[in-house]
């Protein structure tokens, strides 16, 4: 698993990689995560079930994504891939330059590759045009692509000009033990609480939220808003709260740690999502798992996520969102909603990480049966698939990458690189109770100063 986004950073991609890795370990696979160094967290770390994480010392450029020149990461990535005897590289997120690097190098090394796209992109603005071109280059010879929703699949197929049969849809899931309803059912229905948990940025529709709050607070004196999250749009919400004197009814909790999200969710009756674009939206699944009635904008992959009786979908305008919230309030007042426990059990049956791992495993099985493109066919595909200019440029880069790889193999042949002890997998030596010394007994130790985290 390769991505710039992994723990200790928190987010949808990070949680997806971690949970998927854990379930694949459970199914007997050997899984290694490769990400960049986070502060003092460098070298090799072990997480639950012996999940090995390489924190490579690569410079972060912007928004936790590493700076890339394609070539500078090859020596490190090759070292890891050879050491761990990796057979398949699974890269995550279009925003991660390390993911694109890994895909590029994996093909040069003759490894099979899978890519999971977690986000939606437009087509018109300059940044999208450039990112889409990079994605087309990365994915034109990637064995298989996974998307988290059908809308995301359509988007990726168009962006990277892919054969849709080479793209599978496997959603995210929720850990049901992390998101359980409040003991004793929902809070007192006499004061209704609308919960919002999201980054306070434009694309999460915070401007819409700023329009909804005064409108509904004026109409329903017993309505409260509980808002968790941090971002540049916080000031907008503070202005609204100040202007309409809603300090006692609108609480801004600021940044939340992942472990605290559930405790915030269970304080409410209704969960509101005002996103302007969303590939999957984990937040609404987590909220539903906590037994909340979900009201959300009808954007991106959101309509695919929950059954109609668990979600109220609205057009992204203040008017329609207010109407949606009002119908949710009516349901609360009439008591026509199923119990929080019933909703939780339903969501638990709809989404599970074990199911995601099982389906991902099928993708891996399919990929291992396919042949990795040799360099000549790869160059031909790059030039035909990526346009006359970008195709030739990246074909040249691919050639340089292979030449650099030959040089590295001459400098440090593969058989000189010491093979790491398998912490996980068929011959894995990891035991939950045992310390790192056990691994030492079984063979060579990694050269890095490893720390165990369980």
């Amino acid at each position: 698993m390769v991505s710039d986004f992994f723990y200790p950073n928190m987010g949808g991609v990070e949680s997806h990689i971690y949970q998927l890795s854990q379930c694949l370990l459970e199914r007997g696979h050997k899984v290694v995560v490769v990400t960049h160094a986070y502060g003092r967290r460098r070298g090799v770390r072990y997480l639950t079930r012996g999940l090995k994480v390489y924190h490579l010392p690569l410079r972060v450029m912007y928004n936790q994504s590493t700076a890339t020149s394609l070539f500078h990461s090859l020596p490190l990535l090759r070292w890891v891939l050879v050491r761990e005897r990796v057979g398949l590289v699974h890269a995550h997120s279009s925003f991660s330059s390390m993911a694109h690097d890994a895909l590029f190098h994996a093909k040069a090394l003759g490894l099979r590759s899978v890519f999971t796209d977690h986000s939606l992109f437009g087509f018109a603005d300059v940044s999208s045009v450039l990112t889409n071109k990079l994605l087309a280059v990365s994915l034109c010879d990637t064995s298989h692509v996974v998307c988290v929703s059908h809308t995301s699949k359509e988007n990726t197929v168009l962006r990277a000009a892919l054969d849709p049969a080479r793209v599978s849809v496997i959603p995210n899931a929720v850990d049901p033990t992390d998101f359980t309803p409040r003991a004793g059912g929902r809070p007192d229905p006499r004061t209704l609480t609308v919960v919002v948990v999201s980054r306070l940025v434009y694309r999460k529709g915070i401007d819409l939220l700023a329009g909804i709050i005064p409108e509904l607070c004026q109409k329903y004196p017993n309505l409260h808003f509980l808002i968790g999250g941090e971002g540049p749009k916080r000031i907008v919400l503070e202005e609204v709260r100040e202007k309409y004197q809603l300090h006692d009814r609108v609480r801004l909790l600021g940044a939340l740690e992942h472990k605290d999200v559930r405790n915030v969710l269970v304080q409410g009756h209704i969960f509101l999502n005002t996103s302007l674009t969303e590939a999957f939206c984990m937040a609404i699944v987590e909220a539903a798992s906590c037994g909340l009635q979900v009201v959300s904008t009808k954007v991106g992959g959101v309509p695919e996520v929950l059954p109609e009786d668990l979600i109220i979908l609205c057009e992204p305008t203040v008017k329609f969102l207010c109407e949606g919230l009002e119908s949710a309030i009516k349901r609360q007042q009439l008591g026509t909603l199923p119990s929080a426990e019933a909703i939780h059990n339903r969501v638990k049956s709809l989404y599970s990480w074990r199911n995601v791992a099982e389906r991902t495993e099928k993708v891996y099985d399919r990929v291992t049966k396919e042949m990795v493109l040799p360099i000549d066919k790869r160059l031909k595909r790059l030039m035909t698939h990526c346009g006359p200019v970008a195709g030739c440029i990246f074909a040249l880069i691919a050639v340089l990458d292979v030449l650099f790889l030959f040089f590295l193999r001459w400098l440090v042949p593969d058989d000189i690189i010491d093979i790491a002890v398998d912490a996980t997998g068929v011959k894995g030596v990891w035991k939950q109770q045992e310390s790192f010394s056990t691994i030492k007994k079984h063979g060579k130790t990694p050269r890095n100063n490893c720390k165990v985290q369980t």
Partner: protein
Amino acid sequence: MPRWRKALFGRQRFPDNHVDQTFLSDLRTNVCLRHYRYWPVVCESSVVVQQLSAVCGFGVLWRLMLGGALGAETLFAHSLAMALVVYLLHQLLGPRDRGPQGATTRWMDLKSTGIFVAFTYGFSPVLKTLTESISTDTIYAMSVFMLLGYIVCFDYGADTVMVSSCLSVNMGLFSAVCLASRLPSVFHAFTTVCVALQLFALWPVFLKKLKACYPGLHLVVTVTVFVLVTVSLLWVSLGFALSFSILVFTIVFVCPHLLLTLQRRKDNIHGPWDEAEIKDDLSQFLG
């Protein structure tokens, strides 16, 4: 066999990479595409020609003053008379401001003009010597770049990032200050700045109003100004006159044709993945 649903929840008897007939059914191309016609676009390009003419006209006047073919006093007198005529026309074009309010506005305009002329005249010795120590080729290079900046940043009516009326006017005036230092006297410097202000700040305001009220007349004025500038450029240099004519021809006739050709090949993709646009006016909440 059950039909495939576009849903992520619940098990379906289809492989994860199944491609249904409904795949990309929500795809829309070229939504809200503007359809242009050739001659209206040609007419709209007149605003660009006006600014190019103003810049070239300013260059010609400066060159004539530098060579001594045009006296500063003569130019100042003519430009003042012209400014008065244009101001009166501007007043006639708009909604008639009769009564005390109209009189107040005119009095304010007169006061502003008086203050500006007095200050510019008072500071013209400073303006004359301000950039004197800078080498001539640097002055020319700076002036050319500033005038290019003026043309690029001018508000032609397009809603783009680079548009800035304030920056545009300042660039025009800065180029005038730069060039003023190369003229023989303090009064020459004063005249240059006054003419620059008229051409780069006041003239576009009049043209905008003229275009709004009488588009046909605006075209006539554009053609007249273009002819005058081209003829005066011939006086300075045949090469400049030819270059200017070719540039204007390209902007007026070739660029619109190019726009229409590219517009036909446009293929904008829209679908449910697009970021939703907030259509509400939220100023009432965020005031």
